[in-house]
């Protein structure tokens, strides 16, 4: 018979003094299991799930769709069902001040004596804590002691997740259990559906494709990139970000009765490597250089892989790029994310034709084909400008398959001939070997 968990409204961003409860997962009094999602908050930027810390019975003090002040208790988990008050409690708007918790106070570089507040000393004594654990602190308050002991649930840190706009709608398509096996879709997938249907479900999207000639494109790029050899992603992010300033309609979204233009350009790129599909942000991309963008991609990707993404890595994305170039696709139709008006798809490079497809799906309520075509064409031209002209081929790397002489060492001024080698591969042959001595 105990209160196991108080669920309070977290402070997720300085500007959000209230959060909206967007999803209440269970009916009041329902048994819940440790790790199950109890409710979902929505901030101005993202959503935030709260999971049960232990098995118990949930009582909600909130309703979906309403706003609650930071620090207000919105749900409780009790150890027995009898403790739960069955009637839902209406939203309390009682004032609770934003109070700085102790998280930032754990600086440990104080060489002097530590000063304990009277309450801190009481608590330390009652908990039989060794005072020396606070060595290196200037002041230790009751809150600091509590934080150390994990009291007040400050350890409940979870990754923020992608936003959902509203409660998932239950689609009711009849199933016959004798003919099909039902696997419930994950909450991640549900969110993805919600997230993408926001723009797509209206049906007013269209996709335009252009080719980019990639012949010789990596000659210089590979030299200026540290990690991403033979990848167009960094340079596409770099050039797209700059172009979006010229095409603000693609850096905004449809609000229902107007168009919102983002003031900054934060390009997101989609990744899906074992950890679920996520769009990761390169903030302020239009102000960043190519090297910085590459480093940003590396940084945010490793946070993705290490499960250490910050809320800021996922929020305020103003345009998305989805790169399927490693999947051998010729072209595809990307889907526009919520609160975006466009998305750029990058297909694989056709090695024979030395080109790849760029596809842009856009929200027709915000812009139209002519403008997007111009955007794509300009993007393609910018990308093609990275191509090395023939003079700049790395002549030492072009070898005659027959005599292994490099083009650099060839004294003639007619060059090598592209040919098919006897074992059917692409290759080069020098004039001497071709014509014979």
């Amino acid at each position, binding site marked *: 018979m105990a209160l196991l968990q108080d669920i309070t409204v977290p402070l997720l961003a300085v500007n959000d003094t209230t959060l909206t409860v967007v999803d209440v997962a269970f009916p009041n009094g329902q048994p819940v299991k440790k790790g199950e999602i109890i409710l979902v908050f929505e901030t101005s930027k993202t959503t935030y799930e709260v999971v049960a810390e232990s098995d118990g019975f949930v009582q909600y003090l909130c309703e979906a769709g309403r706003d609650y002040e930071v620090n207000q208790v919105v749900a409780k988990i009790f150890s027995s069902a009898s403790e739960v008050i069955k009637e839902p409690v209406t939203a309390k708007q009682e004032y609770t001040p934003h109070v700085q918790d102790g998280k*930032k106070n754990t600086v440990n570089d104080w060489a002097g*004596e530590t*000063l304990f507040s009277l309450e801190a000393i009481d608590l330390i004594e009652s908990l039989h804590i060794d005072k020396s654990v606070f060595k290196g602190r200037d002041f230790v308050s009751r809150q600091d002691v509590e934080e150390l002991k994990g009291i007040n649930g400050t350890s409940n840190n979870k990754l923020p997740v992608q936003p959902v706009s509203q409660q998932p709608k239950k689609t009711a398509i009849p199933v016959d259990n004798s003919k099909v096996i039902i696997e419930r879709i994950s909450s991640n997938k549900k969110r993805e559906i919600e997230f993408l249907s926001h723009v797509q479900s209206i049906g007013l999207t269209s996709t335009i494709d252009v080719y980019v000639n990639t012949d010789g494109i990596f000659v210089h790029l590979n030299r200026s990139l540290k990690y991403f050899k033979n990848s167009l992603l960094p340079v596409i992010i770099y050039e797209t970000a700059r172009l979006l300033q010229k095409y603000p309609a693609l850096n905004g979204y449809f609000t229902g009765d107007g168009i919102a233009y983002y003031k900054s350009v934060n390009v997101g790129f989609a990744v899906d490597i074992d950890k679920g599909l996520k769009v990761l942000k390169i903030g302020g991309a239009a102000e960043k250089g190519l090297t910085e963008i590459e480093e940003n991609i590396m940084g945010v990707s490793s946070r993705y892989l290490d499960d250490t993404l910050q809320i800021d890595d996922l929020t305020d994305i103003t345009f998305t790029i989805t790169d399927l170039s490693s999947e051998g696709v010729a072209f595809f139709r990307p889907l526009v994310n919520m609160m975006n008006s466009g998305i750029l798809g990058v297909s694989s490079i056709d090695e024979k034709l030395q080109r790849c497809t760029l596809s842009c799906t856009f929200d027709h309520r915000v812009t139209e084909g002519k403008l997007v075509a111009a955007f794509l064409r300009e993007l393609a031209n910018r990308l093609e400008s990275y191509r090395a002209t023939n003079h700049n081929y790395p002549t030492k790397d072009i070898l005659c398959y027959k005599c292994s002489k490099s083009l650099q060492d060839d004294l003639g001024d007619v060059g090598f001939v592209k040919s098919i080698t006897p074992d059917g591969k692409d290759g080069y042959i020098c004039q001497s070997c071709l014509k014979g001595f």
Partner: protein
Amino acid sequence: MQSVSKTISHRVIKDAIRIRRVEEKFLELFSAGKLNGTVHTCVGQEFSAVAFAGQLKKKDFIFSNHRCHGHYIAFTGDIRGLLAELLGKASGVSGGIGSSQHLCNKNFYSNGIQGGIVPVAAGYALGNKLRGEDAIGIVFIGDGTLGEGALYETMNIISKWEIPLLIVCENNLYAQSTPQHINLAGDIGSRASAFGIKTFEGDTWDPELLINNAQGAIDYVRSSVKPGFFLVNSYRLNAHSKGDDDRDKEEVEIYRNKDFLNVFSKESSDYYNRYLEVINKEIDDLVDEILLEDELPLENYYKPEAVVSNNSWVGLEPVNKRQVELLNKFFRDKIVSDDRAVFLGEDILSPYGGAFKVTKELSVLRPERVFSTPISEAAITGISNGLALNGFKPLGEIMFGDFMTLAFDQIVNHASKFHHMFNKKINCPVVIRTPMGGRRGYGPTHSQTLDKFLVGIDNVKTVALNTFFDPTIIYESIFNEEHPVLVIENKTDYGKRILSHKYSHFVYERNEDAYPVVRVKPAVSTPTITIVAYGGQADEMLSMLEAIFLETNLKPELIVPSLISQLPVDIIAESTMNTGRLLVIEEGSGYAGIGSELLASVAERAEGAIKMKRISAYPVPIPAVKSLEHAVLPGKNRIIKEIKEIFC
């Protein structure tokens, strides 16, 4: 009907006609709706203007009052600037800001405050005397001004200090609508002679004699370097202002018939009409031209400025000297090195050196620049204002902060307004110092902190010293100011050494603003409560910071502004947004106080929920008895109790 003099110069008559015609034009324009506000005409009194203002030298000066058009025209000849001023044009003598009562041009100043101009004029005249110039000044008052105390404070001082100022009292028998027999006791001239001031007399019905006597009075003041008092008997033929005339019509008619210009117009109508025609044309042409002109745009008059505090911080170190020693040392240096410095105040001469010894030995170093005054706060401040207008850097001392109320008119209606109302032609870099604060047992009228009454005065800086750093940093900035500064010192701080208690758990720093902001914050921890205090209360807080933490669990960051008339809201709001808690402590009572202002400003700026609290003295006079005095002022026990109740 009496006859007018045949020997009087027609130039004088023409000057008087011009004054009358300009004022009559004002009344016409007012009736036509082209003149905003009000005018007070001197119709009937013009020869007083001509006799005095017309006979001064360029280097001399005039302070006049609400009825100043005649004086202005006679002294400056600038009809155009006056017409444009009253028509509200940018080319007006005060840019249209001042209008009828607030003119400033070539050593001519006027202000609509009765009596208050007299000490200012005395200060200006004192400045001339200090420079060894033989320039003199005239201040015009009316018989209505004889009710003002500042006049008598000043008459006492100008006589005692032998200041070359001629007070011209234009007696038109009425104070606005009230006849003299209702509100004036005794004799006018005896008032001046009782102060040992030589008196003169004349009237506007005999301009020739008036002009001769005026010249005699001017010569006396100039040659003897002593004040004079001239009573000009006259009569105002028009209303006080425009239509507000309840005087007996027959009485007015008697004076109308007696008026020199009226008699002259009948006796010498040829001359009169010829002069009138020329003058009318001159005025009409000017008015036609001026009516087409533009008014001053707001941005030329006022531009809002945001508070942007300096954000580079330097560490603070103790100085093993008492605050009063540092102040005294600074003033000793200044009185020798800075020719602008003049010290005025009660009991400031050596060996006494002021009630709190701040001015000790200054009068030994440079006796001619230290004036121990009578108990006359209005005159101390007004004379300081006049010295400031005349290019000096006067430091007036008001012995106790409570007495600032006696100087209030000079601060609010003179120092604060001069620069703007004269359309930024002049600056008034006056400095008024005064100690405030309790905890000395001085009781209700010698202990109050009434800084909240001072911080709301536009264009006047109010600075509160503290014991965190050398106060001469603040006074150096004050010496560079071009506008008025009030300095609140603190009685208990005088005896304290600078940063005498530095607790190792805190970092002490100040920013590099002209009036530095002090910040005391935990050595490494993030603070969890922002506390703002200033002046003497800041020192009280310093010794309390550890106790606050021990008892409340909150890690305090103390911010101590010194420029309290423009609080460093940016710094305080930023700190508050980090801590979520803001406490302001002031030694004055709280209602509509500096804490209120700060909380409102922070609330306008800060984002997120913030808990705020003001702690101040209880709203009663400060008791003398120690136990009650400490209970009324914000002390440690009350502060900690309130923090626990509000923030924990």
